[in-house]
């Protein structure tokens, strides 16, 4: 390759909002119901039905817009996007084109290359479509409208990203913001967050953008990274061969790890957008906007600073604790109950992270209650269990959310502080190991460690190591 190329990337990110009901009717948004059970005349496009906007959708869109430094169109409208497809029961999608709710925002990302602002062109509200299921046996297609009318926001970035790293950092940033706001769970695999990648290449220093393609069906960060690399290579190859990149939509195939053209700009549909006459304009009063602004929860950046300030947690630890909204919630809740931020942080940073890694789980999947972790910390603090035992108890809490107090009781894991029993065990051991006693007396400290270890084993780990240490030293020194 003789020339130097730069990749220019913009993203369209669809996020399913966490409302209980759909955007234009009262049907449930719950995932996984039997086909067409979460439906009504509105979300199945029956003749004569009319949409009524769910206010919560506006509030979530506003919350995301405010958190991404967007301007708010306090007078915004819904438009119809007209196209025929069976998953779209009205054959138009209610979306926003002319006056989207949020515009001109940005988020800051950090990669190995440093910090950078990524512009957000706009955020608009729209409805999701149903799902087509092809029946291979009957050679027909069936439609499930349960997802039809589930609220989405589409976050359209500026073409500000230059690498897959920046794209992933941007998506991570959006995901954290939205999760912290409670506006969505943002799961790529389950489709509650979907990203379309617009990509072009140009020679470094060229004043104009190259022709871009749009890539769809990217279900993981890995797929996104691979798709970006692949598409960059493909476009550069075309240019190097003296060809021209065709503006088109391409579909990523996860199994083949490659993309293929879906449709070119020439057959792009004319969506005949126009304002939906069934919906009145959304007027967002100053008061409403203020109310949403005041109700904004603490976002990650603020939390990160506060953890270091308030709890004296090192930056690295604070970053891990806040990398998931759920982890941060568990941390704060447990701190509130136990009053021991360092201790809570240690448990989460070491034991919880270790188990998550072993079990290949996300922090979002942690199920145990902060009250149980707080209780375990108390048990350790009061010396009811020792640290080694506590680690095993934590695993039980982590896996099955057991009450540590009950668990310790049932499994007989309490520290044995009965000096008589301890003394008896140690004396027996000393009798069996006269050489150790002799070595110790000859100044070999190591020999004491051996007896301590044997004692702990004999007590099944339940003895208080400090007590055992003291007692062994005393008896060996006689």
């Amino acid at each position: 390759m003789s020339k130097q190329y730069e990749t220019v990337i913009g993203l369209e990110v669809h996020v399913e909002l966490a409302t209980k009901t759909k955007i234009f009717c009262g049907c449930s948004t719950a995932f996984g119901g039997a086909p067409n059970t979460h439906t009504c005349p509105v979300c199945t496009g029956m003749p004569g039905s009319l949409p009524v906007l769910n206010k919560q959708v506006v509030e979530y869109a506003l919350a995301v817009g405010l958190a991404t430094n967007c301007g708010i169109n306090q007078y915004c409208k819904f438009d119809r996007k007209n196209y025929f497809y069976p998953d779209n029961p009205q054959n138009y999608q209610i979306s926003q084109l002319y006056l989207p709710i949020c515009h001109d925002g940005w988020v800051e990302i950090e990669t190995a290359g440093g910090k950078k602002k990524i512009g957000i062109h706009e955020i608009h509200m729209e409805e999701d479509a149903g799902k087509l299921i092809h029946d291979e046996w009957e050679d027909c297609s069936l439609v499930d409208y349960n997802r039809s009318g589930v609220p989405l926001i589409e976050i359209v970035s500026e073409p500000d990203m230059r690498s897959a790293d920046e794209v992933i950092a941007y998506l991570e940033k959006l995901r954290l913001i939205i999760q912290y706001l409670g506006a969505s769970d943002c799961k790529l695999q389950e489709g509650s967050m979907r990203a379309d990648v617009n990509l072009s290449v140009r020679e470094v220093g060229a004043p104009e953008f190259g022709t871009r393609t749009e890539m769809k069906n990217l279900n993981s960060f890995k797929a996104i990274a691979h798709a970006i690399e692949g598409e960059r290579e493909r476009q550069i190859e075309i240019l190097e061969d003296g060809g021209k990149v065709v503006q088109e939509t391409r579909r990523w195939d996860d199994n083949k790890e490659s993309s293929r053209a879906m449709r070119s700009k020439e057959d792009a549909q004319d969506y005949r957008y126009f304002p939906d006459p069934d919906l009145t304009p959304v007027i967002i009063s100053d008061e409403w906007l203020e109310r949403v602004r005041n109700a904004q929860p603490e976002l990650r950046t603020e939390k990160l600073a506060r953890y270091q300030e308030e709890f004296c947690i090192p930056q690295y630890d604070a970053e891990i604790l806040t990398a998931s909204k759920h982890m941060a919630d568990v941390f704060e809740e447990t701190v509130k109950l136990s009053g021991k931020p360092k201790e809570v942080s240690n448990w989460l940073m070491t034991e919880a992270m270790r188990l998550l890694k072993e079990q290949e789980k996300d922090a979002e999947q942690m199920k145990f209650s902060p009250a149980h972790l707080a209780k375990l910390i108390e048990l350790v603090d009061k010396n009811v269990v020792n640290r080694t035992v506590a680690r095993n108890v934590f695993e039980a809490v982590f896996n099955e959310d057991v009450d540590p107090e009950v668990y310790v009781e049932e499994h007989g894991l309490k520290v044995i502080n009965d000096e008589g029993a301890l003394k008896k065990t140690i004396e027996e051991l000393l009798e069996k190991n006269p050489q150790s006693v002799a070595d110790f007396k000859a100044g070999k400290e190591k020999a004491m460690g051996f007896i301590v270890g044997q004692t702990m084993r004999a007590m099944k780990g339940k003895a208080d190591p400090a007590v055992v240490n003291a007692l062994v030293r005393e008896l060996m020194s006689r």
Partner: protein
Amino acid sequence: MSILDLTAVELGKKIKAGEVTAVDATKAVLEQIKALEPSLNCYVTVDEEGALKQAEEVQKKIEDGTLTGPLAGVPVAIKDNMCTKDLLTTCSSRILGNFVPTYSAEAVLNLQKAGAIILGKTNMDEFAMGSTTETSAYGETKNPWNTEHVPGGSSGGSCAAVSANECFFALGSDTGGSIRQPSSFCGVTGIKPTYGTVSRYGLIAYGSSLDQIGPVAKDVTDCATILEVIASHDPKDSTSVKREDCDFTSALVDDVKGMRIGIPKDYLGEGLDPEVKEAILNSAKVLEAKGAIVEEFDLSLVEYAIPAYYVIASAEASSNLSRFDGVKYGYRTKEYEGLHNMYKKTRSEGFGAEVKRRIMLGSFVLSSGYYDAYYLKALRTKALIKQAFDKAFEKYDVILGPAAPTTAPKLGESLSDPLQMYLGDIYTISVNLAGLPGMTVPCGKDSKGLPIGLQLIGDCFKEKNIIRAGYAFECSRGGYEAPELAEREER
């Protein structure tokens, strides 16, 4: 005097007084339907069994005192573009030839709550697109005054049914004059209320920003009474308005002293049949003689209303009607290869010519590159027309004029020249564009014996002004005149 000659309110009173029963009234009207339908074709669907069953239930509730309203026990006909649960609803289109809704339109529910008895569904221009009821896939409706003439449209079935005593009142819908023009042609009274007064939930949309349901009946008293029943704030319709002043019957007062009435000169110019013009001006004189202050004025912009209307209504229709695709309900072509072929064949076979024309027109004006030039410009024109009316209503309480330039044309005359047919909407269309209430009241007949309708237009939410003017006029004009139904004796 036959029970059929009673107005809806008169019948309601007699039922309440125990002089007749809801069942008597329903049976009488069903007989009339049987006798006249072969020659008039007002209905797409008559629900004889259902109507009698409802009548029996309603009669019980009247007797035990649960139903006390003025329309309890009164049989009504519903235009076939309003959903009726478990009752075929076709929009007079082949594409909905088998469509049985799972729910009822809000306006229909309001009537049922009041104890009205649904007789069936009336014929109309397909998807309410037309001015003659000839574009119906189920045959044209004929004008009861002269069966060689059209009843007007698109609510032609509803208006003809009222005129021919095939119901005691009816619901129609009005997007560009579809209640007022056929009311004029059939010699009945009809109101198109202020946009947002009657819920559109369950009304199969034509032009969503213009559609409004309204009553068709024998006189102003009936219309005010019915409107009071069907008007409601409906949270299921985002464009529904919460109104506190829906006591329309309180405006049934024979007093127009000091009422300021304006006649747009623009409504009396070229194209207006001289006999219609004379009847309208005579009606104005009647009101003037009762103390109203009548003068002519320039409304302006009238010539822009028709193009603006056809752009806006067709644009909305092209999108509204895209859901009829053979996938979920309604007609699907018999043989097809693949999805797109199924769409094409279903819609080609399912829609009639006028509907296709408007879908194409609407798709064109919304397409990229034309949106600004056509659709946006039409929206701006709509806003200017509203401003012109706002200005007029600073001076006048009521605007008076004809409902249509002529009386009912002969069958077959209109469809051959759609542009001429569109021009016939000139006096009604701007009322929809401005969202205003308008009413047609019969005010005479031409030399052929066909009815002429007087149109009264009010400012937004001022139905009471036009109801008062209409009622006062009616008091001087004399009671409702029904056509002589020659066919009835012939058989």
